[in-house]
């Protein structure tokens, strides 16, 4: 519906719900009942609360550097909700919501950013790859995953996330090219949040849109209002169905905005105007859903306050578990370089244990 009619060179981003929360009912995906939308909204709030908590923890030294999702919740919620459990999510590093929705515990996500490798262990049966930090490198993995699925007749789709900066990387082009040639069931989801750290979108490419790059690789590219939950869901669903039918990949440009800093180590006020950020605030995905849900009597200040009061303890509970999780043991640090410990690593592991004993003994001596 959208994929065969949209022209990424000339058309505006696909929108179903406007900035004021007004819905184009004709385009509304039938699965997105008001109840369902309310549930999705609540999950977005949960992840925003977790995100806020992680920022506070980072400032007090209890969390490492991490990339906040602020502003991109609808882009992730709308897209990831279209997947089957057996499909794959291949994230970059700002996809807390997509990863969590597809089965990665929030605890794992927090542990990883806290600096504990235990957080990278994706539970069995959850088809999500761990966070991929080198920008643009993970799309090829999604192509490989969906290609393997095709070769084995498994009918899994791989949905991979990346940002506007990633579209400048060579691996993005190789990934798009392989997916086009081998017609893999890959959905490329570019969250164009307008900035790669401090570098604005216009410096990444002279192309008018990012979505138009798909044309060169022989498959559809569409621009979607990334802060519109309904449009994100509808378009991704069509791309996922297309992929599952064996018709090949799609590139979706989710046009959104990074409301926060790049990471907790960044200060975006140094490189962007306050006015620009302010202009995006009315387009905030939460505000729009609130306006919509309010018309259905499913949202009010009071409902919001009650919701947060209910969700905050759940976040606190996860944080308590994270704080109580021990760091990796020396055995664990050496345990996953290869399937089996090599003699060389066995020797180095013994040495690391020896060093920690020596350090402990010296510390004990100093205290005594």
């Amino acid at each position: 519906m959208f994929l065969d009619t949209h022209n990424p060179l000339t058309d505006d981003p696909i929108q179903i719900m406007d900035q004021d929360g007004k819905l184009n009912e004709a385009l509304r995906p039938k699965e997105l009942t008001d109840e369902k939308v309310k549930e999705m909204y609540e999950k977005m709030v949960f992840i925003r609360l977790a995100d806020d908590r992680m920022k506070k923890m980072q400032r007090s030294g209890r969390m490492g550097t991490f990339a906040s999702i602020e502003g991109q919740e609808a882009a992730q919620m709308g897209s990831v909700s279209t997947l089957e459990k057996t499909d794959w999510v291949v994230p970059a590093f700002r996809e807390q919501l997509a990863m969590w929705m597809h089965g990665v515990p929030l605890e794992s996500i927090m542990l990883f950013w806290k600096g504990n490798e235990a957080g990278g262990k994706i539970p069995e049966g959850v088809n999500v790859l761990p966070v991929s930090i080198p920008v643009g490198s993970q799309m090829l993995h999604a192509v490989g995953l969906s290609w393997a699925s095709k070769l084995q007749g498994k009918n899994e789709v791989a949905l991979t996330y990346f940002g506007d900066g990633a579209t400048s990387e060579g691996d993005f082009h190789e990934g798009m090219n392989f997916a086009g040639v081998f017609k893999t069931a890959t959905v490329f989801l570019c969250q164009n949040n307008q900035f790669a750290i401090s570098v604005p979108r216009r410096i990444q490419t002279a192309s008018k849109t990012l979505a138009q790059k798909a044309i060169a690789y022989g498959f559809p590219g569409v621009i979607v209002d990334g802060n519109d939950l309904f449009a994100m869901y509808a378009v991704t669903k069509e791309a996922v169905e297309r992929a599952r039918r064996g018709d090949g990949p799609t590139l979706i440009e989710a046009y959104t905005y990074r409301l926060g800093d790049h990471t907790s180590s960044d200060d975006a006020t140094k490189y962007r105007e306050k006015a620009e950020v302010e202009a995006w605030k009315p387009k905030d995905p939460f505000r729009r859903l609130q306006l919509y849900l309010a018309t259905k009597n499913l949202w009010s200040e009071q409902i919001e306050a009650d919701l947060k009061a209910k969700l905050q303890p759940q976040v606190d509970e996860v944080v308590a578990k994270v704080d109580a999780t021990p760091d990796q043991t020396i055995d664990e640090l050496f345990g996953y370089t290869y399937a089996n410990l090599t003699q060389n690593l066995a020797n180095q592991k013994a040495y690391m244990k020896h060093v920690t004993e020596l350090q402990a003994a010296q510390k004990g001596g100093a205290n005594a």
Partner: protein
Amino acid sequence: MVQAINLALKQEMAKDKTVLCYGEDVGVEGGVFRVTEGLQKLYGDQRCFDSPLAEAGIIGTAIGLSINGMKPVVEMQFSGFMFESFPQLMCHAARMRNRSRGRFSCPLVLRTPYGGGIHALEHHCESEEAILAHIPGLKVVIPSTPFDAKGLLIAAIRDPDPVIFMEPKRVYRAFKQEVPEEEYFIPIGKAGIVQSGSDVTVIAWGAQVRECMKTSDEAKKLGISMEIVDLRTISPIDYPTIFNSVSKTGRVVIVHEAYRSFGPGAELSATINEEFFGKLKAPIQRVTGFDIVYPLLRSEDLVQPEPVRILEAIRKVVGK
């Protein structure tokens, strides 16, 4: 060696339906060195095929394929072009097991012709094993004979971790050796003693094993008995075999084509010294490539180790 590798691929593809062979020109043409010849005819274009000309794409997709149940055995047409794929190898293939705490792994094989001696072009002669062996999570294997090539490749294909299988192109068609039809494998991480001796341990791999063998007769004339260790695996290194040999001879010469500084010889020498300092009868000698960009074909013989250089180093450590 070409036929031996081809046989190993054929047999593994017959045995295991998840084994895939792809890369540049490997399908219809059967590879520029004909290593994958006939595979597409035998197993179809879903299992042996040409890929777009994109090295990062080849390795990046192999990562996804291997995580999701396939066994990609991909070819880098020449090791000199492998650098385009380096971020994928180093940042992902080598780390996926560790990053996911064992949930995911990348049991892929990257086959690539490497090394000099066939008067090829720029970027077609270098020896990159040290660069690869420096990366935790990768295994690096180099056969020196057709027999070893078959056995090591089968082991590599069945290995649970990513294996870089470097094929000394100079040995591809240099000599003939009977290779058994039946299946066998040579374990990764085990060196071989290709010639027993008592005066000096000479460690080499790939095409340099033959250069050492060629040196042996000259050495014998001087009354020097060489023990030649074919390392076979550059990572992880089989130190027990090396230490065994060194404890017998007390003298070591290391021979490799790779650049000298920070080369595998430096690592070997350091580790042997840590174990044997004081017991060695002479300082360890290295016969290696030079720290200059690998010369074009008119001058490449100058940088290749060969019997004259190897013998000089041996005489130096033996004192004859």
